[in-house]
């Protein structure tokens, strides 16, 4: 048993802290996806991505040949945690590329695909920005129900159909797309393929979806006879389902360290707020109710931290943490909700103040989290889906539906 990070990992943490101090002075803490919404935020995030790439951090766990530096899973963990804690925009480059597209291409992609698509991601370039389109109006939790068709026609597929809840589509150069290539199969999971879509292709319509806090993260995508070269097929035709499952697992691996970083920062901000804010002539921080709520949140965060450590440790041992990723995702959602509600109780009426207004408290972090947590918790699979995975893969229980 040993919970110590190595000297090298601690050194990395210090460098990231230093980088953030230098680059971010005075900027508000913006959680994750929100940077995709406004042009000025996105522009800043892209500048940061470039710099993070130059520091060698953006895709550090990738092999050198693809623009990484063979860093350990623990170093990557430290990056995710610390960069999230510091709120460095661009740290995930719109998520898809460094989150799962790169790793998936390394596993299933052709040599040509790796050579073409990986370097711009590693370089933090606009050409390395990806979106991921899985969901459709009738394929949410029941994800295998994909209807968007790709019909083969010589060297091309012709795409028709609709995707929804595609984050970053309005920023992306490429799309990691799940389509149905065989509609004749009896089992829905079969006949699905993964293809790479050039977002500049004619026939794509992007329609923004504003979330209920007015933030533009999601989009609808419509495909009207979009032509995609067959060379853009990833892996084997009609075997996309299994690749998808793997991609989703990659996605969930980084959830815990990343959200832990953000949440720890927010908790610290609230604690400071409680220390300097008086009510009835006493600091909020001296109120037993406030103290106990925040102590409970701190315990949840400490647990989340360890769940994050555990998954990284398992990855580092060459294990494939399936249930752990689903457990962590569900636990993150729980922790987020509790932190958001507790935070809002502490800042009180100010939790309804627009997060970018001059009257926002705690850098708008609580209002932002409160507005975003239900959406984040739905993304990458609902609570129910995650718990089903744990029930099946860890506990050996039958599928509950």
């Amino acid at each position, binding site marked *: 048993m040993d919970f110590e990070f190595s000297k090298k990992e601690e050194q990395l943490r210090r460098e990231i802290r230093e980088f953030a101090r230098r680059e971010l002075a005075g900027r508000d803490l913006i959680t994750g996806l929100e940077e995709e919404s406004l042009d000025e935020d996105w522009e800043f995030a892209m500048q940061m991505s470039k710099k993070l790439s130059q520091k060698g951090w953006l895709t550090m766990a990738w092999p050198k040949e693809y623009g990484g530096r063979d860093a350990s899973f623990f170093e990557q963990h430290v990056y995710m945690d610390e960069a999230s804690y510091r709120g460095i925009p661009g740290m995930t480059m719109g998520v898809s590329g460094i989150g799962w597209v790169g790793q998936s291409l390394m596993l299933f992609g052709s040599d040509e695909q790796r050579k073409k698509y990986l370097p711009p991601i590693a370089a933090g370039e606009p050409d390395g920005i990806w979106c991921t389109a899985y969901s459709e109006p009738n394929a949410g939790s029941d994800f295998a129900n994909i209807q968007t068709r790709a019909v083969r026609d010589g060297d091309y597929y012709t795409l028709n159909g609709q995707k929804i809840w595609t984050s970053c589509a309005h920023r992306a150069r490429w799309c990691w797309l799940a389509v149905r290539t065989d509609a004749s199969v009896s089992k829905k999971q079969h006949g699905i393929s993964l293809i790479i879509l050039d977002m500049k292709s004619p026939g794509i319509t992007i329609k923004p979806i504003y979330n209920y806090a007015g933030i533009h993260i999601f989009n609808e995508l419509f495909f009207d006879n979009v032509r995609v070269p067959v060379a853009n097929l990833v892996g084997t035709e009609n075997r996309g389902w299994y690749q998808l499952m793997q991609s989703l697992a990659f996605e969930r691996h980084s959830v815990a360290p990343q959200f832990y970083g953000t949440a720890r920062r927010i908790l610290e901000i609230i604690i400071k707020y409680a220390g300097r804010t008086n009510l009835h002539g006493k600091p909020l921080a001296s109120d037993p109710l406030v103290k106990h709520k925040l102590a409970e949140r701190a315990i949840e965060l400490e647990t989340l931290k360890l769940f994050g450590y555990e998954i990284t440790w398992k990855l580092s041992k060459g294990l494939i943490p399936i249930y752990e990723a689903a457990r962590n995702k569900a636990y993150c959602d729980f922790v987020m909700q509790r932190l958001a509600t507790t935070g809002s109780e502490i800042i009180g009426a100010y939790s309804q103040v627009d997060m970018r207004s001059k009257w926002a408290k705690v850098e708008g972090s609580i209002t932002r989290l409160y507005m975003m947590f239900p959406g984040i918790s*739905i993304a990458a699979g609902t609570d129910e889906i995650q718990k089903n995975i744990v029930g099946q893969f860890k506990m050996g229980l039958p599928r509950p539906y």
Partner: protein
Amino acid sequence: MDFDLNEQQQMLRTMARDFLSRECSRTRVRELEKDSRGYDPDMLAKMAELGWLGLVLPEKYGGTGAGLLDLVVLLEEMGRNITPGPFFPTVALCALPLIKFGTKVQKAGYAADIAGGNKIWSLALTEESGSYDAADINCRADYNGTNYLINGEKWFVPFAHAADFLIVICRTGEVSNPQQVLTAFIIDTKCQGLKIELIPTIAGDGQCRVRFKNVKAGKQDILGGVGNGRKVFDFIMQSATILKCAEVSGACQAVLDMTLAYAKERIQFDKPIGSFMAIQHKLVDMLTEVEGLQYLVYYSAWLLASGQKAATQISMAKAKAAEVYQQVCIDGVKIHGAIGFSMDHDIGCFFRRIKSAEFMLGDRDTHLSKVASGIGL
């Protein structure tokens, strides 16, 4: 013992549901959130025509002299439809204390304009702290021999930017016994030294900061007598709070209804999602809490309306309302899945108002403390 609404209340409910679903669709609600006024004067005028603004005002002032329970029914419906605008501050926060504490002259001067929908009122009570504890009122009104001069700030005053008059609760005595030295004033918003700014909120629901710099008030502007502000405050903290709870209860019902409908209609894995036990039981939990809240609201409103001790039950209702509304919105959005998270969906209108409902007239902890003292702790 009777849980039913009486005939008049049933008619009022039907009328309100018809009117609001026609005039105040959720699409309209979203438009009004972006509107700088935050409400629709025409809609307000129609409400006045329907007699809603004067519902609880005596007939001699142009009202219909209905009771608190009727207003509860109406506000429940308004909550179902959200109904943005100054109805709540005018009627619940101001008309009731005006009728209760106003002098004949004050009532004669102001009540008919309220009933007619000609004047908008609001209550300036809480301050920068957001607290609804009387001890945290710092805004001062000092007597200079002829006038009171009001200085200080009031925060989160709903629709102050649209209001013609404010009821302002100020400290008029020394701090030694902070509960005894409050006075309520009626202030014309056009008076000198008053500055109103809109606080940008997530729901765009017209909450304001109001600053007072040597705002003059005469003796005739005092509501309820000098040093009696605590009584006015206590009255508002009961009557307005239970009405806010009625509104929240209606909102909870609406969120439950739309979520249940969606759970029946949304098919995943070849079944309506409401047939998955985890979802179904969540819906059942929501129902239980929403029904419980509704009954608690009715019960405490009935206690108040029938002249019994109601403070503890009202605080119970407010604490429960804060909790249930938040939980129902969160579960509702999650059951809706991604669609519930989009600006175009109605459920977001309710989600954006969670915190406004929670903090107006006192948060959960404030009311839990009142409940605790009510049960002998």
